[in-house]
């Protein structure tokens, strides 16, 4: 578990934060939230495309900032505090409209993992949104964190009746060092 956590965190750190030195502010007056989405897309290239992504994000009215690593093909999106997290379909549509081919979407969310009769769910503290969670090995290995405030890193997949379904990669206690 530890090795896996270290590997995944390292991957996330390297892929998602390197050469993302200066995030682009979309809503200067809005307070930044703590939830983030990472979109992996093909075709991220020139400034014109990057500006296109920014334009569509701005139109959504929910995004505080974004950053783009053109070489690695990853866009990092930060939501305005309290604004609901966009569903996978909408996010993919923004990326597509901006001229890219969306691939994987990952979410880094702060909230509480809960167990219900239907399985696991994740409730985002800031927005109150609740998403279904796949009970994979990561969940099984971190059962002691159920009910506690955690940071969840997960692949976001399209789901019926919910903005997305979360497939956890890392679950760590809130406040712990990544």
């Amino acid at each position: 578990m530890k090795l896996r956590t270290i590997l995944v965190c390292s991957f996330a750190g390297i892929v998602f934060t390197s050469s993302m030195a200066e995030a682009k502010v979309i809503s200067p007056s809005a307070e930044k939230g703590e939830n983030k989405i990472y979109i992996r897309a093909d075709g991220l290239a020139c400034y014109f495309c990057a500006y296109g992504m920014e334009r569509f994000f701005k139109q959504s009215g929910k995004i505080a900032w974004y950053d783009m690593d053109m070489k690695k093909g990853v866009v990092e999106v930060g939501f305005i505090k309290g604004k609901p997290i966009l569903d996978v379909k909408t996010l993919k549509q923004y990326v597509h409209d901006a001229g890219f081919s969306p691939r994987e979407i990952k979410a880094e969310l702060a909230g509480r993992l809960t167990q219900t009769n239907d399985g696991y769910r994740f409730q985002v503290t800031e927005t109150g949104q609740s998403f279904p969670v796949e009970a994979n090995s990561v969940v099984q290995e971190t059962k002691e964190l159920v009910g506690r405030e955690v940071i969840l890193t997960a692949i976001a997949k399209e789901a019926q009746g919910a903005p997305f379904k979360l497939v956890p990669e890392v679950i760590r206690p809130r406040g712990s060092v990544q």
Partner: protein
Amino acid sequence: MRGVAYRLAVAVALSIFTVLGLFIWLDSAGAGDQGGFKLVMAWGKTGEAPGQFREPMGLAFDPEGHLFVADTRNARIQKFTQDGDVLLAWGRSGDGQGEFSKPVDVAVDAEGNVYVSDYDLDRIQVFTSGGSYLKQWGQSGKEPGQFTVAAGLGIDRKGERIYLAEFYNKRVEAYSLDGTFLFQIGEPGRVWSGAMNYPTDAAVGEEGYIYVADAYNNRIQKFTPEGKFRDKWGGMFGWGIPASWKGWFRVPSGIAVDRQGRIFVADSANHRMVALSPKGHVLDQWDLDLPTELFSPNRVAVGPDGRVFATDTAHDRILVFEFQSF
């Protein structure tokens, strides 16, 4: 029997490779050395003070030789001497008159009026050369006379028309200088003559021919003043195959034409400048001297003395070249 078939297949494959190689060689072969870039100056650094930039994009000269630069991320236009001394800066972030969200290109008419396209706001604003607001036009949309991201501007030498390279509508539109829609050039598509895929810039030569940086078709296209297709260059017979070979392009984002009809291209994903003869033969190419992941150089303009200016957007600076004829 199987041996014969195998030999036949090898022979056919070799023939195809030979013919294809010959085509590529013929396509990339230039007209020989007829001139060359010489970097003579570079100015600018990252910042918000006058003379500094944050992602400079479009640039253009007025008839008096002043250089105007769209300082995109600073949401302003800056005016310079040809030696890089800043004379004036105007604009601020906003959507009111004289304000910008993302100014991405500038063009100047014969009277010195400055036309600025705004990426986010889908409008063209017109200013005096002193930065005073004159007028604006533009409406978002896909219909004729509307645009979604006018990424590049080009004004003809007669001062009658302005051409807008429309990034998301994948076409070029011609307007009169008062903003009246005239006609459309090209249509969305790949490979075929006149088809466009995210064009980013337009330039007009002495005889009124329109040159389009058809960025994501990785080629340059040439049209008559009436908008009829005339020629295409890059990516094997102008089909738009991206590569770094001589005469091929990868996201050519900026274009300008000098008085001799030579065409200068900011071949941004290849990180180089390319000069073409009026017939599209490569005269020279110059590679960016700094490592970058981003697409740069980005835009190009020809000064009144024939020097070539380019925005190195990734490094917040202006590059100045002499193009020497041998």
